[in-house]
């Protein structure tokens, strides 16, 4: 059992009761602080070093082959707490050699950055790992409209992630080998 030790508080001595020595100590501390190294980051010139798991602006990413990953399942739209995402689903044309088995792709994909709370749920819920909160953190604009990221903007921000997630390629290979599902 932890034992609590109650310490007797000593009565203040005369010099302590004037507070002057204590004030002098404090003054010394602040004075020496003046010559310490500054913690300030000169922001626009110097950028902060972001940690690996930093959650910046949500973006859409391509797979390593440069193809669209999002399949317009609208799970992110559903999960987004402040309803920042709006997806207009579209279909992938049947004859697209590159993207066999993918039925849908977003026709339009908007994330309203005035609503987004950077919670990262969209990244978490996405079955295709198509949406990522990357390290872009300074988004600004002069109007409300400018703050709504459309699909082009989202892909521009996201780019291509070098991940090892070739889900649809695997599906295609499987079908070629006659082993669908």
């Amino acid at each position: 059992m932890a034992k609590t030790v109650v310490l007797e508080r000593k009565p203040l001595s005369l010099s302590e009761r004037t507070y002057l020595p204590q004030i002098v100590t404090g003054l010394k501390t602040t004075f020496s602080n003046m010559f310490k190294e500054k913690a300030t980051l000169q922001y626009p010139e110097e950028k902060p070093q972001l940690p690996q798991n930093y959650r910046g602006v949500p973006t859409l990413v391509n797979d390593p082959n440069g193809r669209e990953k999002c399949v317009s399942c609208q799970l992110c739209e559903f999960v987004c707490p402040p309803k920042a995402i709006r997806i207009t689903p579209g279909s992938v044309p049947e004859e697209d050699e590159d993207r066999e088995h993918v039925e849908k792709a977003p026709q339009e994909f908007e994330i309203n950055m005035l609503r987004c709370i950077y919670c990262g749920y969209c990244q978490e819920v996405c079955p295709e790992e198509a949406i990522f909160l990357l390290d872009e953190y300074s988004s600004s604009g002069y109007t409300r409209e400018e703050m709504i990221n459309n699909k082009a903007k989202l892909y521009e921000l996201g780019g291509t992630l070098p991940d090892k997630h070739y889900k649809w390629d695997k599906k295609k290979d499987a079908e070629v080998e006659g082993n669908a599902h």
Partner: protein
Amino acid sequence: MEFNPEMLLQLGLKVLFAFTMVGAVMTMAGYSVLAERKVSAWMQGRVGPNRTALPFVENIPFIGSFLKGLGIFQPLADGLKFLFKEEIVPGHVNKVYYYMAPLVALVPALTTMTVLPFGQYYDEAGNSSPLILANLEVGILFIFAVSSLGVYGIVLAGWSSNSKYPFLGGIRSSAQMISYELAMGLSLLPVFLWVSVPGSEASALSLVGIVSSQNDSAWLLLIQPVSALIFLIALFAETNRLPFDMPESETDLVGGFHTEYGSFKFGIFFVAEYAHIVVGSAIFTTIFLGGWHFLPWIADPWPATWVGTLLGIGWFLAKTAFLIFFFIWIRWTIPRFRYDQVMSIGWTKLLPLALINLIVYVLLVTWLDQTPSATP
């Protein structure tokens, strides 16, 4: 007394000097705002304002960026900002007093400096006369009288704002200022007692007399440390600086008496506050730090010419600047007192201490008087 050219010239010179001094104090006030920001930044491991730049000065290779880094041009930008901000007057205020209050706050702060000696002028014969706008026999009392009027600005601002936080700030400040004025006056009595040599014709209530008494001998800070301490604490309270910034304590009164003020009117309050600090530092320098005289017990090393005049003024300004730094330093070191603590420090600690100090020095001076060899 008829007007003649010489009188007009004298009058013109006086007016010119007055404007120069107002300009100097205002500039110093502006730069103490900058100093406040810079020093607070350094003490907290930040760098402070370092972005403002003037178009051409900025391009001077080395100096430009150095000045920019020091934020030298920041006060200019701040002043312009105050000027061009939108004037907002809340609907519920008492208009006349609301507009009057900032002026009432600023004028006493600038008036006190008329009786402040800041240097020494040597004529051809090598005689020195003090540089001062008005050499009053009772200079220090004049300062007390005028600075006691400064409280009206705050009280009026608090009352005319017609809302609760400014009102509380105004009430607090008037109570605080009245309380600390007593300790302040009492703390100076022993100083004047010490300085006035018995039998001398000159009145020792004049600040010039005080400064010249410190020439070539100890600073009064060393002779009267308790007085200096009490005076300094009271000065903090009178200028509403941090351990005693009851009228505008941001944490409990939003902004205190100037909560309802914006743009230039707020700027005037701001400048008045710093002008108080500048003038207060100068007064402390004059009384306790030997004014424009060099170090204690050392005669002024500069020649008795205009060079000496300039060096003396510079030395005076350096001491004042150090005191301003001290004000800032204290502000960023000590937390604020609670209101009842402020009052109890003033009435139950400082006032009795000042009285005891007075009695001790009265006895001491009397004793020294009885033994003629040891007169100060």
